[in-house]
């Protein structure tokens, strides 16, 4: 059920990337696509009734080991979020520059103007 929702989010993003004509909408779709993958990774590490992977000195180590959620997916998602920010920034820069050239965010209009 939870995986299904995550997959739906992925498909929504994919649909937007493939079908939208507006550059801004494509960028939003890319962000959604990346978020869906991040969400999926975090889901893989989740443990029912677990605790966050941070020790504070009060939890006994063996309880921590038995209940901690998986730290690796969280580390991966942190990295992948930053990568996502980088990609988004590049895309926005190109889109702004395209807008300045053509005066529109419509990708078909841009292609038509280019001839």
């Amino acid at each position, binding site marked *: *059920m*939870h*995986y*299904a*929702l995550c*997959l739906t*989010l992925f*498909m*929504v*993003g994919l*649909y937007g990337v493939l*079908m*939208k*004509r507006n550059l*801004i*909408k494509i960028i*939003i779709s890319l962000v*959604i696509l990346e*978020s869906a993958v*991040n969400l999926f990774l975090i*889901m*893989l*590490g*989740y*443990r*029912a009734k677990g*605790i*966050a*992977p*941070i*020790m504070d*000195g009060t939890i006994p180590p063996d309880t*921590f*080991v038995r209940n*901690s*959620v*998986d*730290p*690796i997916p*969280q*580390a991966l*998602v*942190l*990295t992948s*979020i*930053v*990568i996502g*920010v*980088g*990609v988004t*920034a*590049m895309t*926005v*820069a190109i*889109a*702004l*520059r395209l*807008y300045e050239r053509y005066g529109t*965010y419509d990708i*078909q209009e841009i292609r038509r103007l280019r001839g």
Partner: protein
Amino acid sequence: MFELLGVVLLFTTIAAIVAIETRDLLGVVVSVSAVGFGLIIAFFFMLAPDVAIVPIVVEVLTLVILIRATLRVGLQPFVGNRDFFGFIATAAALVVVFILSMKVFEGLPKFGQPVFATIPDTPSMHYVTNGMSETGAANIVSAVILDYRAYDTLGEATVLFTAVMGAITIIRRKARKAPSEPEVQEWEE
């Protein structure tokens, strides 16, 4: 708890659909932020405070940039899809992929039972058992991203650097010159 998480995810998905489909600028901005905050709540529910804290701040920055990028255009409505037949074909293909993937996803570990707890000899198990004593960091996620997998983080910092460098390059004032011309200043202070 499980049901609550489901509701949050459902909300996020709906917000995502609205963000992509609505033609109104304000609607786009609101629903994009709704997606972001839905994700943040989901991350908190799934006990990933380290991860949840980052999208909060990233979300704010992305929104600022998005609003400014679209405001410059004024409130012109967003145009729709590419074409009708393409739409039908794509939608059908995506639905087929979705159904197939759902069948396949039955092989995943059950939600709430991470793989490192069921399979022996995983690095994660080692991290939660010995991470504190080996690295000295109480935050195991920090220990992973900055010690065990610090090389990844170097790559991540480089990705950000590359993207910023790329953005500077793309937005520069003048890109081409004659071979004899001297190097030009990229921007005025």
